[in-house]
């Protein structure tokens, strides 16, 4: 082969790049696949050694995740035949279903707190980023640095002060408290990322809109916001992932009403210790919302829709 091109990679390098991507995808996906498989194993299969890849699937993990169960006497069990498929699963352990577990509530808490704080971070972050990008603000650089500096220490370093503060303010174990806390952590990231995106939107668009008969807020809403959609989407994903996965503060500040799923899942106790299939089932379900959110917003993650209409 004698031809050489600087723009089009050779077949071999394309093949190499493709292989690397596949290997990377496998490496990152194996643990996920393992969690998902474990969710369908029996407790014995889940902890067997060597690990079982081929096994008889069961929904036991999911049943245990969503229910609480009590052991019953053989007489009671004989007198009350199982009514549903999930009754039958727990009968194998001489148990009956006593009621739903707290997983549903905890999951809903995660949704409310995760999406609530993401929305609030994006809402405040976009307005702040627009102001920093477009207006002359006294000490703008210092303010921006201050906002960034809140991210410079590990959040857990302020855990004790926040714990005491929240107890005084009555924010411990409340949805509002957790939303405010996660927004506080995310807002610096949101302001900085979004400012970068808004800086790239030329001022001419807003000026044109102002002259076309719109107020500044309408120009922001109709012209800047649609063009910042890409940046807003990717920032929202970052914020959601943080708030969704946060563990340390959730353990410290929530115990009941506002407890999110991450501190709840590992506490699922089964017969004789941790119920690994139920934990894995919880983790699997817990993964889904962020996955769906990312898939829904993925087209905005591809840059390039806003380029080319202003001559530079």
């Amino acid at each position: 082969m004698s031809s050489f091109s600087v723009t089009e990679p050779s077949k071999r390098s394309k093949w190499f790049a493709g292989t690397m991507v596949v290997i990377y995808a496998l490496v990152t996906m194996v643990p996920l696949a393992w969690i998902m498989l474990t969710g369908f194993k029996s407790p014995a299969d889940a902890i067997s050694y060597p690990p079982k890849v081929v096994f008889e699937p069961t929904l036991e993990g999911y049943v245990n995740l969503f229910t609480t169960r009590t052991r019953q006497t053989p007489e009671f069990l004989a007198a009350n035949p199982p009514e549903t498929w999930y009754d039958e699963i727990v009968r194998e352990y001489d148990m009956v279903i006593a009621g739903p577990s707290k997983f549903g509530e905890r999951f809903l808490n995660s949704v409310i707190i995760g999406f609530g704080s993401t929305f609030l971070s994006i809402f405040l972050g976009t307005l702040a980023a627009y102001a920093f990008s477009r207006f002359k603000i006294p000490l703008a650089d210092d303010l921006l640095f201050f906002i960034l500096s809140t991210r410079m220490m590990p959040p857990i370093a302020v855990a004790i002060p926040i714990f005491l503060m929240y107890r005084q303010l009555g924010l411990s174990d409340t949805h509002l408290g957790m939303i405010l806390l996660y927004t506080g952590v995310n807002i610096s990231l949101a302001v900085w990322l979004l400012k970068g995106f808004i800086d790239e939107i030329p001022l001419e668009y807003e000026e044109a809109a102002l002259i076309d008969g719109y107020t500044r807020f309408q120009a922001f809403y109709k012209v800047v916001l649609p063009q910042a959609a890409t940046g807003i989407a990717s920032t929202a994903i970052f914020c959601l992932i943080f708030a969704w996965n946060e563990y340390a503060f959730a353990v410290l500040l929530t115990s009941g009403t506002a407890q999110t799923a991450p501190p709840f899942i590992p506490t699922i106790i089964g017969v004789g210790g941790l119920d690994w299939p139920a934990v894995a089932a919880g983790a699997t379900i817990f993964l889904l919302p962020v996955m769906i959110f990312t898939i829904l917003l993925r087209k905005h993650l591809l840059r390039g829709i806003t380029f080319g209409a202003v001559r530079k």
Partner: protein
Amino acid sequence: MAEVVLKNLSKSFGADVGVDNISMTIPDGAFVVLLGPTGAGKTTTLRLISGLEKSDSGEVWIDGRNVGSETPAQRDVAMVFQQYSLYPHLTVKDNLAFPLKSPILNTPADEIDRKVAEVAEVLQISHKLNNKATELSGGEMQRVSIGRALVRDPSIYLMDEPLSSLDAKLRTDLRVELKRIQANLGATMLYVTHDQIEAMTMATHVGVLSNGKLVQFGTPREIYEDPNSLYVASRLGLPRINIIPSDIFGGVPPGTNQIGMRPEHITQGSGQEAEIKRVEHLGDQTRLHLNLQGHAITTLADPETNYEPGSQIKIAPKNPLCFDADGNRIR
């Protein structure tokens, strides 16, 4: 349409002077062209009238109102930017409809459709109405940008070199089209350009700016034939006016330092000897590039004549423009 009056308008950006004490009346229905080199304050003047910049001092009056405290939207002006700023997330049609949909105009849907179709027809972009703005060529974008101003019926159209990015053919077409539209609508227009032909063919009035000051304001013929300074004289004219020391030919009013001769204001056959350096046959005219005692002179000759480079020719000025040492006109 309306009369626009600028009274002692000034604006500086830190140490840089943008506009320095400009007073100008743009009569209702006039087509005023602002001429001047980069940095002379042309664009700043447009931005002050539109309300995108706040003046340091002075007033802008549109249609008898002092608009000092009004927002750009309230001033009822349309502006075409030098950089065509189409909204990239909208289609061509939505771009054109955008000003009509504004809360201030709030045009009914059927009228929007009618006006957009009309303007698209004039600008020859009807077939692209459903394209995304980013899918257009540069020329098409600029036409949409002009169209976005033309769909409206504002007090004044402000245009900042709207044709500068187009190719020669389209530029000529659009120049004629713009002038026709302006004349039909009786629109008031303030137009910034570097292009002499645009200025001479479209303008009813020309304002010449220098370092933020309005140095002369008049009809294109006045500016061309009767400039009040060397600076104004050299803004118009292609080939440029020839400037030479006044003592070469003599016979000038006292105080004259330099004289300016337009290429067509040089007679041949008598006067001073000059050497022909180069002959350009342009078809409708022939340009002669001469060397007159070390000064480069450009003049015109009959297309039929046959001059040879290297030969000598006698030339004399006809009604030269006389300037003093500071470049001011001596009449």
